[in-house]
């Protein structure tokens, strides 16, 4: 498997197999191609931070001379600070709330980093539990993204139906884990699961989704809104965006959980058009794939003995080191680096997928018209909450 660049975290460049310090600092502003001066009659159209069209707060400065988008730059208005000076447990709560919709992915990446730092491996059931959570999250996220796309197209019936399914997924999660967003589910000692995962229900949901999904793919007008919209330069992309372009980029192949995924036989889903349509295709396939994986995991609700933690509880004081954890979140590679100094966490670096996707979004907007913006935006599955967060 060849090495690929994933993105920048802290002062480092993260590659699929190593982390290296950035020698020359180049500006990585979320701006698309720099304009050659402002043409006559152009203006900077301010979209956001508070919009009705997008779920989260985000500001976009769109340079346009009417409808046609020349350049676009995105600024995250909500910048949240998470203190690392608190206990690991409290920090974990913070990590959960970096991005509620990817909470399981974040927590898993974070804990994996921590475990790598200490060189401990949790019981297999715990790992499987985390995988199950991530895949559930993936299903929900892809359903939500599809729903957003249909909503922007004024496609009322599928939009309503998909929203219905999203709610159903949330209920399945809520029943099994007690919380719809996996808050308070994962701990240093494993994860809490109050009830069996309702697989038949989940299967029905995914079947209904596939029905809707095939239906919307039949609609010429809807497809027309996605095709050719938001073409990305493929090399530096991640997640569904990369796979839409046919690349084998997936942390489930080269990330920390790759082993498990390998054992349960994970198949990568790819498409051959690097536009919003391709990204939708990939998501559509991944929903079924995720369901298949979850089915194979057969995780059970059970108590975990805490023995496996002794390793680090022994020399927790005075330990110094660091670890990296990377998983495939629904929108692409998600990585944490945790640095520990004398038993306390001294540094937390985060590479959220949305940061990379944001750059891709901006570069893919030039030449688009305003009405196509929401479609392109949603197709990346960007969450500003994880972009605008810093660990202090």
């Amino acid at each position, binding site marked *: 498997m060849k090495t690929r660049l994933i993105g920048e975290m802290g002062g480092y460049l993260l590659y699929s197999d190593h982390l290296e310090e950035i020698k020359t600092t180049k500006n990585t502003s979320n701006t698309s191609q720099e304009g050659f001066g402002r043409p006559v009659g152009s203006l900077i159209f301010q979209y956001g931070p508070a919009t009705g069209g997008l779920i989260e707060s985000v500001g976009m400065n769109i340079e346009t001379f009417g409808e046609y988008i020349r350049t676009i730059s995105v600024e995250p208005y909500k910048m949240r600070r998470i203190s690392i000076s608190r206990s690991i447990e409290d920090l974990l709560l913070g990590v959960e709330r970096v991005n509620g919709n990817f909470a399981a992915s974040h927590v898993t990446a974070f804990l994996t980093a921590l475990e790598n730092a200490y060189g401990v491996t949790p019981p297999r059931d715990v790992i499987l539990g985390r995988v199950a959570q991530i895949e559930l999250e993936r299903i929900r996220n892809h359903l939500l993204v599809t729903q957003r796309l249909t909503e922007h*197209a004024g496609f*009322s019936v599928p939009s309503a139906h998909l929203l219905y399914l999203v709610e159903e997924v949330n209920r399945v999660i809520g029943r099994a884990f007690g919380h719809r967003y996996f808050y308070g589910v994962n701990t240093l000692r494993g994860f809490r699961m109050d009830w069996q995962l309702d697989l038949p229900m989940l299967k029905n949901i995914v079947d209904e989704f596939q029905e809707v999904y095939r239906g919307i793919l039949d609609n010429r007008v809807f497809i027309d809104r996605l095709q050719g919209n938001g073409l990305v330069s493929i090399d530096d992309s991640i997640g569904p965006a990369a796979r839409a372009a046919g690349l084998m980029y997936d942390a489930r192949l080269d990330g920390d959980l790759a082993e498990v995924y390998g054992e349960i036989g994970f198949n990568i889903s790819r498409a051959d058009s690097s536009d919003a349509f391709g990204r939708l295709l990939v998501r559509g396939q991944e929903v079924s794939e995720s369901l298949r994986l979850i089915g194979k995991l057969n995780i059970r609700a059970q108590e975990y003995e805490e023995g496996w933690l002794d390793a680090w509880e022994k020399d927790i004081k005075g330990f110094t080191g660091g670890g990296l954890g990377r998983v495939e979140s629904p929108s692409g590679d998600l990585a944490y680096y945790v640095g520990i100094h004398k038993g306390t966490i001294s540094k937390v670096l985060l590479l959220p997928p949305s940061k990379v996707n944001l750059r891709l979004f901006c570069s893919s907007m030039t030449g688009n018209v305003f009405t196509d913006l929401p479609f392109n935006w949603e197709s990346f599955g960007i969450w500003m909450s994880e972009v605008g967060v810093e660990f202090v």
Partner: protein
Amino acid sequence: MIDQMVEALIQVLGTILVAPLYSGIAEKLKGVVSLRRAQSVLQPYYDLFKLLKKETVVPSSASELFVYGPYFTFGVYVLISFVIPVVYPRPVFLTPTVDFLGGALLFSLVSFVKVLSAMDSKSNYVALGVSRAASFGFLAEATLITVFFAVAISTGTNNPYVESAYASNPSHYLALDHLLATVSFFMLWLFETGKLPVESQGLSEMGMIDDSLTYEHSGKPLALLKWGGYIKAYLLGSVWLNVFLLPWGGQVGVLGAFFDIGLMFAKWMILIAIVLVAETSLAKLRLFKIQDHLAIAFVLSVFSLLFSVI
């Protein structure tokens, strides 16, 4: 004279008061088809009633035009409801004020004032929508005019009431020119009332065309704009029903006028059914495809003009 006044009163009130209901019914059904219990059919009335009681926030640099423009446009809509056969099948009091073409010009007068009133807010979002509406205007206005003339030329008069009577004759009704005009006008109606596949009342600011005209308004002016919107949809829709699709069944006399309101309700259920199917099965067109939609409507209407003379 008195009779005509009463009939006019029934027609105008029948328009102003009933118009919101049809939007309510359409929305309700649309909601039900999209898996929901959905809001009450009276929701438009509830909204208007609430807005009329709310405060009006005016952008700092806006003038009276912003505040009182909506009152004027509402007035024009009411005037139009005197003019065209939207309830009663015979001319009523003040009907001759303008003919069919005059009606079309009054509609563009409304949009002219509406745009100025909205732009007076100096909001970029309004400007965005207005610039779109303006760029499609040339086809929309043209189609409205030519479609009215399609019937005018086949009947030799520009009087909508005569045209309605004329079309009710099966041989005229089934004539190619009439059918083409019917289709063309329906396509235009979809555009004028912001229905799919042209526009949909969503939350995204980026897709706004008609919605942008009310984006900055609030309180009473907003209520009047919304209400005016319902009336516009009703006027154009009823013209389509009474002159093009179903030019039959209108009763005369004061009692007949009341009957006609019921008749219009029945006719509207048919229109709503058609729209419901369109609204629930179509997706929104890409912006620049909208001109194709309108171009088709325009060409159809021109063809119907040509067929009517040759």
